[in-house]
């Protein structure tokens, strides 16, 4: 390796990462604004629900219904959030854009890592920021409305879901960029979509259908748990499987299929 390579590789550190973070923020501030508004809205609604809990507990079914409703709303937020992120990131992965990405004097794997890491930093970072500021706002305007770990937030389900979506994003973007096959990117989001759908069905009380879905694709408790780290088997759902692993398995399977099929075809 001559000295000329040193500058190129040494660059895969702060300046490049920072520039990508900056680029993503500039590109997606509108998305983040929408998400921010929705998160704040959700938190205020949850706070309202929380404050009325003593009253609602008298009637457990109402409590459940309201929580289910909020769960649904939360689910919808995530759906929108994911969709917005999906389409925002798609810009990078369009066949034309990939050339713009790959023309740079950077090792492609490292470049993909930096790009994806920047995406995560922006996604996770902004989410956390919005969440925390929202929680602070809630407690200023509706004292006692609850914080992160309040039961109204379904046992930190947000964090769990976040990890799930993050996982999909990581896999989707990096695989697609690395292999230069944007189709992989879509495939990686399919398991997530399936999980979201089944949860939605469950929340809408279409349990039978939902359970069928769940059996095939992995169960979850509420919208959030299933997308995240792990769900422990429970007395009612002894066959529960860690849902993240389901997501991972599906991603690997589908990506492998795409990679293999393109290798078989002689393509430019």
């Amino acid at each position, binding site marked *: 390796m001559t000295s000329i390579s040193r500058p*190129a*590789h040494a660059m895969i550190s702060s300046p490049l990462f920072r520039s990508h973070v900056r680029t993503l923020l500039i590109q997606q501030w509108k998305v983040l604004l929408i998400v921010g508004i929705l998160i704040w809205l959700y938190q205020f609604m949850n706070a309202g629900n929380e404050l009325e809990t003593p009253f609602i507990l008298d009637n457990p079914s109402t409590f459940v219904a309201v929580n289910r409703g909020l769960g649904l709303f939360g689910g919808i937020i995530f759906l929108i959030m994911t969709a917005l992120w999906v389409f925002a990131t798609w810009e990078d992965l369009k066949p034309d854009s990939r050339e713009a990405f790959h*023309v740079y004097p950077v090792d492609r794997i490292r470049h993909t890592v930096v790009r994806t890491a920047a995406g995560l930093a922006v996604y996770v970072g902004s989410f956390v920021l919005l969440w925390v500021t929202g929680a602070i706002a809630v407690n200023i305007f509706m004292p006692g409305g609850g914080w992160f770990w309040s039961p109204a937030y379904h046992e930190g389900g947000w964090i769990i879901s976040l990890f799930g979506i993050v996982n999909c994003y990581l896999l989707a973007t990096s695989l697609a960029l690395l292999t230069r096959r944007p189709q992989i990117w879509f495939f990686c989001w399919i398991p997530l979509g399936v999980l979201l759908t089944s949860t939605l069905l469950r929340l809408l009380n279409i349990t039978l259908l939902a359970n069928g879905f769940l059996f095939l694709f992995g169960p979850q408790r509420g919208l959030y748990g299933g997308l995240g780290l792990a769900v422990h088997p429970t007395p009612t759902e002894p066959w529960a499987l860690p849902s993240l692993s389901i997501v991972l398995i599906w991603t690997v399977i589908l990506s492998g299929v795409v990679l293999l099929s393109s290798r078989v075809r002689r393509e430019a």
Partner: protein
Amino acid sequence: MSSPLPTTIDTEHPAVATHGLHKYYRRNRALERLDLTVPAGAVYLLVGPNGSGKTTTMKILLDLARADEGSTTVFGLSPISDGPLVRAQIGYVPEGRIPGYEWMRIDHLLTHHAVYYPSWDEEYARSLIAALEIDLKKKFQKLSKGEARRVQLVMALAHRPPLLLLDEPMDGLDPVVRDRVIEILATHLAETPTTVLASTHHIQELEKLADHLGVIREGILLAQSDTTTLHTRLKRYRIEASSDWTAPESLAAAIVRRNGSGPELALDIWGEEAAVTADLAGSGSTVRQVAALNLEETAISLLSEPETVS
């Protein structure tokens, strides 16, 4: 019958050298047996009809596309195994617009781009932006074809790379801007030791900068040479001959282009002038005029040659 046209350039340490490149898209031949050589420090114009393989060649040098057969070196390195190293030394102006950054503002696009190149000369970039009258506040998608091209030129030139790959650099530019760009390129070459490989339809304008020419058609490099040799060896002979005159055996393969039906004919012939004139005179025709061709006429002439590759 093999063509006497020059297809090889001898140089010890070429900036770019391809060996037997083959590339097919589905059934279509994009490149065949391409042996392109660009000497270090040369300004090499690659000329050919649309779809003849110029863009494909450049993409292979950048590893944006892979050849099906053959090898490539850029400054002695392989674009495949030493991709980042190779691309660090290249300034690329692609055909069309750079995809993927449509939503970016130009100032941000340039700042982001500069991060990738340690040799980025910010002052130079600024002077280019001023000279090319680029509006930094505009978003890339709002730029006209010509404005986008100007931005892409800055992106390629400002880090003073040893190799410039320019794919139709003048495309979409009005005559005044084209002139400005040529001026900028001439200055750039004087300030920075650079090798240039440019594909262009505007041969006349770049003629004075160019010192090498390669002519490609349907993926095959018909001829390549330095311009001095071309200028000396390819000439237009205006002759007067009877209607049943045929070219002598010795010249048959060397006649690149033929115009007119007689008694006056214009023949573009490759060879040493005195010998060709003697051969023509000896065959019963009268040589009225021997004219040198400018680079555009040379390219057109060479491109009109029917394929003689076996």
